[in-house]
């Protein structure tokens, strides 16, 4: 699974730490998701997309 988290973070001027605090995980988890080393659960994926005010499929997509 791939994602656009980095792009959306840049658009929202957020650091990994900011996003991590927002969704209640560690910065390392956000980094692992961005790098494609860890696929988030559905609920975390929704939390992340909600933080960016977009639909989940705009942030995450199956490649």
């Amino acid at each position, binding site marked *: 699974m791939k994602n656009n988290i980095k792009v959306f973070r840049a658009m929202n001027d957020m650091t*990994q730490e900011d996003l991590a605090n927002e969704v209640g*995980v560690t910065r390392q988890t956000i980094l692992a998701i*961005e790098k494609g080393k860890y696929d988030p659960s559905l609920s975390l994926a929704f939390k992340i997309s909600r933080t960016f005010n977009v639909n989940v499929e705009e942030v995450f997509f199956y490649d």
Partner: protein
Amino acid sequence: MKRNTYFIIVAGIAFLELSLIWWMIKSPPRPPGKEILAIGIAAGIIIALLLKGKTEDLPEGDERLHLINEKSAMKTLQITWILLFSFAASSIVFIVERGDFFIKHFLGFPFIQMIILFAVIVVFAAFRIYYTDKYGGYDSDEE
């Protein structure tokens, strides 16, 4: 302090405790022996508890960390089962073949249990490091 570092230190403490017990039982009983053993074990437990307080605070709901812990625990359980089974099976063979072999050379079942408990800590730490690496725990970024 990182969690994995903590588990490695605890494994080291467990090894020292094990060596201490081995030394205590194997060496002829001298007056300070039991006291050293008692102080050593108590000191080891206290150090482990103090270090636990110094480990990093992680968010409760971090699912990646839960996954790492779950997978490490599951693998450790599998390895523990194999270890226990191997010890039990070999004990039965040795007892049938050679009578008191284990009691003479391995100080009986309690000491073997201690060895297994030590092995469990080492195996858990090893799997935790493996899964942390697998799920991007050691990656660094430009931020």
